[in-house]
């Protein structure tokens, strides 16, 4: 069964450093998403991406964040200057091009980001 993969599984960084979280969505999917989950809290939407551009972003997704699809397979989330409060699990998700209102998203296993 196809799945979304994410690397690394755990990233430790110093405050102020840049990090890039990588995702490989399911190969024939066209819609891509990033979510985050702070430990013990709910899953929060960050950004959606389609046709090589951002479709929608949340208030969390400020100028420190950016996304890119550098090639035909990878989808990355960059945090330019990490803050302590960026420590969270980051999930990538992808969705196919199903018609109508079906919106099953397939989530990756997550990258745990720890900012020291």
């Amino acid at each position, binding site marked *: 069964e196809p799945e979304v993969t994410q690397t690394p599984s755990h990233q430790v960084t110093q405050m102020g450093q840049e990090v890039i979280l990588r995702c490989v969505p399911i190969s024939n999917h066209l819609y891509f*998403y990033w979510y985050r989950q702070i430990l013990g809290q709910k*899953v929060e939407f960050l950004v959606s991406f389609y046709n090589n551009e951002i479709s929608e972003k949340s208030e969390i997704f400020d100028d420190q964040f950016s996304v890119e699809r550098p090639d035909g397979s990878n989808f990355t989330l960059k945090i330019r200057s990490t803050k302590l409060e960026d420590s969270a699990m980051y999930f990538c998700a992808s969705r196919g091009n199903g018609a109508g209102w079906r919106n*099953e998203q397939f989530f990756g296993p997550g990258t745990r980001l720890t900012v020291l």
Partner: protein
Amino acid sequence: LAKTTQPISMDSYEGQEVNITCSHNNIATNDYITWYQQFPSQGPRFIIQGYKTKVTNEVASLFIPADRKSSTLSLPRVSLSDTAVYYCLVTGSNNLFFGTGTRLTVIP
């Protein structure tokens, strides 16, 4: 965005049927109801989705009354491996906005 309300936690014994109800009084005409499951340290996983009446798949059933102001996820004969957080989402877009979910604990 329609607000959802569901119990914070539930316990059930193995082999029992579990019903988790979600209230969404402000659901809009374009909204559909989706349930996700999340195990610890894993990403959410789609369970089932519906618009009205009843939907059933190999994992669960979803009951939606005519007014669509609530929905009930039914898990038949739960096992220990069904221990997880279950999220009810109501959305008319393809972006998912999760609430705090219901933590289901299955007891042997």
